[in-house]
């Protein structure tokens, strides 16, 4: 087993504060989803993804010790993050939007579009 360093500080209070923050954010996410479920999808996505990102960052920074320890971990995480963004951004306009706009299914209209057709 590798030897561990002796940590100079006890971070228990920080962890409990982060826990409270995560709890509050989870409740906020739930309420936001309930309140905004019938309003614009963009608003829903922005709010919920934002709240989820804050929660994920809190878990990463404090529970996974990214804030307490060295920056070498970002050397691994940066290329990963880059690939994540590139992969999804690359496929979204093509398989996502274009499939809906130009795919064989465009002839089958939804009830919402029927009023607009001649």
């Amino acid at each position, binding site marked *: 087993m590798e030897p561990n360093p002796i*940590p100079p*500080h*006890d971070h228990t209070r920080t962890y409990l504060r982060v826990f409270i923050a995560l709890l509050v954010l989870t409740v906020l996410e739930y309420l936001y989803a309930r309140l905004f*479920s019938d309003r614009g999808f963009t608003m829903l996505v922005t709010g919920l993804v934002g*709240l989820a990102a804050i929660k994920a960052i809190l878990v990463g920074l404090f529970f996974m010790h990214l804030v307490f320890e060295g920056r070498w971990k970002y050397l691994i995480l940066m290329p990963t993050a880059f690939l994540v963004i590139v*992969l999804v951004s690359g496929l979204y306009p093509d*398989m996502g939007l274009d499939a809906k706009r130009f795919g064989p299914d465009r002839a089958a209209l939804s009830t919402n579009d029927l009023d607009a057709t001649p």
Partner: protein
Amino acid sequence: MAQSIDAEATPNPTPPTAIHRTAPLLTPGKVALWLFLGTEVMFFTGLIGSYIVLRAGSPAWAYSNLFPPGTPLDDLRNARGLVIDATGPDDARIAETIAEAVDSPAAEIEHQLHSLPTVVLVNSPLQPADIDGLTTRLQAAGAMNRLVPLDSFDWPRPYDKLTNPLSIDLTAVNTFILICSSVTMVLALSAIQRDDKRRLSRWLLATILIGSTFVGIQVYEYYQLMEGHRYSIGVSPTGHFRPNSSLFASCFFTMTGFHGAHVTGGILALLAIWLRSLFGGYSREHHSPVELVGLYWHFVDLVWILLFTVVYLL
């Protein structure tokens, strides 16, 4: 940072070896685990990214309130459906009345009436039905019902029970439960960093129990979705929400299933280190497996935070 921490802990001049011991260690185990977590990020990106792309490409008619997912709606625009919102005091009579009208066993209708609101009859050009007659009979029997026109969507909407069977309330509680297990895990690590072996074992056990509760609730949810409930026609052609019910269903089960498998693997690893901790296998100087399994556990929690948002709430 290492230098300032060292100065606080030991105000007297310290020899080089002590400074080295208090600096964050770039151990092979930690590097390996972070590399593994990098691959896990790519794994879940494949799943969540595919979900985003598939959803973006889903046609506007893919899901409707009155027909099974994927039904072409060209000739069905004038369809109307009868939705039951509440059965009133006499469930059995309501079920019998509906069963007679739709020519289905009453037991199946009763099963369906456990998940309200639900569509019980559809009048369409392809399959005409006496929807107004049934509405009158059900209202006379005390049920709350309404007639709805055809409404279609590119993806099931959250909270819309006519197309989306997922229980957001239960899963929100489950999300909180998994976050609690992350807290107990970090407290376990904190304990062994103070050489408190007893608290390490206790917090590890708490993590295992809470994590198992999360998996248990997921298994319960899967059972209710696939077998326990009978959902409205807009959810699935059979009433049971299974991987082959729709694209939404297969995405849901793939993503949450793989996540559940990761949580289960984490629980097995936690069990191993908990058992070792009971025999004093870890100390302040040597506890890297605790830290490494902890990192994996927090990652699994982080993925769930994103999954819950993307799959359940959006």
